[in-house]
């Protein structure tokens, strides 16, 4: 066995088998988990008589149920995964169903880490799911051939049947399962790698816009979100808005007024072990309205903690100070000699950009229901981006609350549809609070954030400040320096980890000799794909900001501000160089050096011009194993693919040719969110009309071209592009959060304003299916709208606004400045 050559060989194999339950055969396939540390043997040994194992289960009625560990939060990921598996497994689409596995200690060993982030689901799972499907098919074809008494070579599978070419007879998968006991073991990774996948030209389901399987339940009210759970003897919990976002301490609670509310039970000060839920008091009652009323009737005395007087103005002042302390900066990009080439430049630009806080504001406020069962186990009902982290965090917390060892605690997390995630459903304060209440009350508790408390405890995108310089020589951008300061969200997620060891799972890394740590999630996007020979990005961390506002990841993470900055600045540089912004960009998107992307086979990392290639951490399931036959990074083609998108978008929008009325302009932007290692190539053109007397502007049209390699479900990709582009429109038009005296101040949707129906522009969307490895599509388009709009405003009236969101007042002010 080639297996034996591998370390750990004996423990790495997987099994396809059918098992019998109530006389019927089931085929399920157990494979090594996607992420996380467990091995295949765990998967097998954890498979009792019937376990719907990691990817799918076929039942004798011919129904195939796909087990989806990724959160279903609007991207229809279950449908995409099912399409990928069904393609290779050859099951009829009408008989495909979805379910969501329970998160438990045991299942974690089978499924690995359940975590949905980074637009990474299709990117990281495509190859693996394809192979899982193909292996299932191989086993069934072999068994079917035997049943038919046919030669294996004459048999193939189609639409859930094994067909013998010679006799023209066939047998259904369901029949096979009832007649044959399947048991076949494959080695991992060798057999796995050897599976022959379909050629793209043979695809029947991938690339087809099949209706999403989760949609019908969402149009008749039957869809189940966590809030729709009812448990026997359940009470309700509502949060009293804490005095500060973080670090307040409750000194006393007076609930005498609350006591007169019928149904009020008690109030609970949440134990803030793990520095979560600090200053949280939850009112418990028999109904939610009573809990909510009681939460408002509590009189709470609080020590506001260190951030009690901190406001956005203080944060901004600190940002400006930090930018003047180069010794405290960490280098993120360092190529050539930026200072030297600036001095030699015949033209320079020196400008400041900034962005405000925004938050996820998902339509489903955070909620969760927790109960402790009679056997002592804990059950959490929640819609979350990571059931695994929810379970692990709660286990650690309960251990502190109860004084019992973590191994003695058994926590199960039941996943539900997620009513919007956007990066904001990966903190588990709510889970801890609900569990603590259930513990205190001795009853199950449904905890629901009111919209007001949801805003108050939201995890915003950090505010930012940027200073950019350009050196232009002979009309070329020869030097670019980007200094940026923000709160770094990474450290906040490294619970229990030493932040500054530079090698932990957060990929805190540094490119320079000083080896300072840097939080990739806060600087990503500034490492753009333009070839600029002398290029430097330095970053400063305002740690206080991170903690005070509880900064977090928000749709495309740092790209969501950095693309606004980089792409607006590129426009400024083009104008300063006296060149057309399209031609200027294309001349630098030349795919040179590190900007060529990571090739299919080896590359030499670490050379100065390849500085970006050192890091591949998210793009593929086996990023360092180049021997996978299908191994290919989504970065292949690099900047040239981005240039291609830009040409398509500009061409479709009529850049340079379409006659526009006075006061209307076009602006360009490109982006490769999310990270350099996991890029989806996208370019956009915004057409905007500005009323120069009021500063009010309207986005008339967005033209977007995206190269995602392969679109698993093209119509759904378009929906994702439109939705994310409108998300981007919101952050340039109207979304912002304030922070005053330690508290986020917007309270509801009359103060925090996502886009609405009237804001919707005309769309023209082009999918460029280059045939490369499929990449995520739910986020990238959100990054190009703000800069494209900013550039269009400039083109329309000469106003350059360097702050996001762009308010009418800011447009007027910039107009005045332009005329001066």
């Amino acid at each position, binding site marked *: 066995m080639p297996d034996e050559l591998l370390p750990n060989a004996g423990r790495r194999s997987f099994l396809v088998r059918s098992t019998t339950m109530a006389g019927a055969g089931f085929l399920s396939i157990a494979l090594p988990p996607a992420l996380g540390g467990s091995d295949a043997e765990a998967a097998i040994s954890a498979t009792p008589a019937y376990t719907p194992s990691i990817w799918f289960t076929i039942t004798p009625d011919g129904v195939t149920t796909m087990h989806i560990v990724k959160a279903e*939060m*609007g*991207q*229809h990921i279950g449908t995409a995964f099912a399409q990928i598996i069904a393609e290779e497994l050859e099951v009829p689409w009408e008989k495909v169903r979805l379910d969501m596995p329970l998160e438990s200690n045991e299942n974690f060993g089978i499924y690995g880490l359940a975590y949905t982030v980074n637009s990474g689901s299709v990117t990281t799972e495509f190859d693996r799911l394809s192979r899982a499907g193909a292996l299932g098919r191989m086993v069934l074809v072999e068994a079917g051939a035997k049943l038919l008494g046919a030669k294996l070579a004459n048999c193939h599978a189609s639409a859930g049947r094994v067909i013998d070419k010679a006799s023209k007879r066939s047998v259904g998968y369901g029949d096979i399962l009832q007649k044959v006991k399947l048991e076949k073991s494959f080695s991992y990774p060798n057999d796995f790698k050897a599976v022959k996948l379909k050629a793209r030209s043979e695809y029947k389901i991938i690339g087809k816009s099949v*209706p*999403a399987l*989760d*949609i*019908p*339940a*969402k*149009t*008749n*009210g*039957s*869809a*189940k*979100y966590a*809030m*729709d759970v*009812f448990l026997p003897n359940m009470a*309700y919990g509502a949060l009293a808005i804490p005095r500060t976002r973080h670090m307040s301490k409750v000194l006393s609670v007076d609930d005498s007024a609350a006591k007169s509310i*019928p149904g009020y039970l008690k109030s609970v000060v949440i134990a803030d072990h793990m520095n979560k839920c600090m200053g949280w008091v939850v009112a418990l009652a028999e*109904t*939610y*309205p009573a809990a909510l009323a009681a939460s408002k009737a509590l009189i709470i005395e609080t020590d506001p903690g260190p951030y009690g007087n901190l406001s956005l103005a203080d944060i901004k002042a600190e940002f400006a100070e930090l930018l003047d302390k180069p010794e405290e900066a960490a280098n993120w990009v360092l190529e050539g000699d930026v200072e030297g080439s600036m001095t030699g430049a015949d033209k320079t630009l020196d400008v400041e950009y900034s962005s405000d806080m925004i938050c*996820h*504001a*998902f*339509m*489903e*406020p955070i909620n969760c229901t927790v109960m402790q069962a009679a056997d002592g186990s804990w059950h959490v009902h929640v819609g979350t981006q990571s059931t695994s982290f929810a379970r692990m965090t709660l286990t650690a917390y309960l251990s502190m609350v109860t004084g019992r060892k973590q191994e003695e605690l058994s926590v199960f997390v039941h996943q539900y*549809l*997620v*009513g*919007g995630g956007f990066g904001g459903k990966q903190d588990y304060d709510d889970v801890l609070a609900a569990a603590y209440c259930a513990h205190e009350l001795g009853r199950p508790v449904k905890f*629901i954030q*009111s*919209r*007001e408390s949801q805003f108050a405890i939201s995890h915003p995108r950090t505010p930012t400040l940027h200073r950019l310089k350009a050196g232009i020589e002979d009309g070329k951008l020869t030097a670019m320096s980007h200094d940026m300061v923000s709160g770094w969200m990474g450290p906040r997620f490294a619970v229990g980890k030493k932040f500054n060891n530079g090698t932990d799972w957060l990929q805190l890394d540094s490119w320079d000799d000083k080896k300072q740590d840097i939080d990739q999630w806060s600087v990503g996007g500034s490492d753009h794909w333009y070839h600029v020979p002398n290029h430097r990005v330095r970053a400063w961390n305002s740690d206080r900001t991170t903690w005070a506002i509880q900064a977090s990841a928000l749709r495309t993470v740092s790209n969501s501000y950095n693309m606004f900055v980089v792409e607006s600045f590129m426009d400024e540089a083009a104008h300063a160089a006296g060149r057309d912004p399209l031609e200027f960009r294309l001349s630098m998107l030349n795919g040179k050096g590190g900007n060529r992307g990571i090739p299919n086979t080896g590359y030499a990392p670490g050379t100065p011009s390849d500085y970006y290639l050192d890091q591949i951490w998210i793009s593929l399931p086996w990023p360092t194993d180049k021997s996978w036959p299908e191994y290919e990074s989504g970065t292949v083609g690099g900047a040239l693919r981005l240039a291609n998108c830009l040409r398509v978008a500009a061409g479709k929008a009529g850049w340079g040719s379409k006659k526009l009325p006075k006061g209307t302009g076009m602006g360009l932007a490109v982006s490769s969110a999310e990270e350099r290692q996991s890029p989806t190539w996208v370019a956009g053109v915004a057409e905007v009309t500005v009323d120069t007397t009021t500063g009010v502007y309207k986005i008339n049209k967005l033209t977007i071209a995206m190269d995602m390699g392969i679109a698993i479900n093209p119509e*759904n990709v378009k*929906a*994702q592009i*439109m*939705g*994310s*582009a*409108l*998300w981007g429109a*919101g952050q340039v038009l109207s979304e912002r959060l304030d922070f005053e005296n330690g508290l986020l101040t917007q309270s*509801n*949707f*009359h103060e925090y304003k*996502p886009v*609405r*129906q*009237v*804001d*919707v522009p005309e*769309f023209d969307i082009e999918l460029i299916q280059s045939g490369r490895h499929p990449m995520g599509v739910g986020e990238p388009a959100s990054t190009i709208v703000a800069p494209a709009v900013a550039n269009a405003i400039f083109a329309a009236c000469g106003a350059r606004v360097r702050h996001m969101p762009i308010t009418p007042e800011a447009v007027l002010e910039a107009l005045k400045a332009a005329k001066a």
Partner: protein
Amino acid sequence: MTNLTINGRSLASDSPPDTPLLWVLREELRMTGTRFGCGLGVCGACTVHINGQAVRSCQVKLEQVGTGAITTIEGLHPSNAHPVQKAWIEIQVPQCGYCQSGQIMQAASLLAQNPSPSDKQIQEAMNGNLCRCATYPRIAGAVKRAAQMMKEKKNA
């Protein structure tokens, strides 16, 4: 005890009379298709019909319902046969889906009153319903498609 007519059935509620209808529907009567988004009448997630009119159930107190006939998403058509539901599925409107009960109820009441709304009328009628996934372009398209389906049915 308050008697209610919901989706053609007579049901009773024990909630205090000032309880928002939303919570009576969702948590007491367990008709969870109606969603909680803001509690302030500014998002539309909780939209139901009272006597055919779209209302924000978070803003209607139990005592205000009187003899009004309530229709919730569950009552529009449980197997998605209402033209608005059909159009929503055909155009594949929902993403996360959380706002969609409200969107659909809003659209159904619009079309009941105005069988062929203009683009502008659709925009105005639907503007109170937030969708954070921003499915707006498809919502507008699906309202038009539903209008067309209703016309076809009438002429058939």
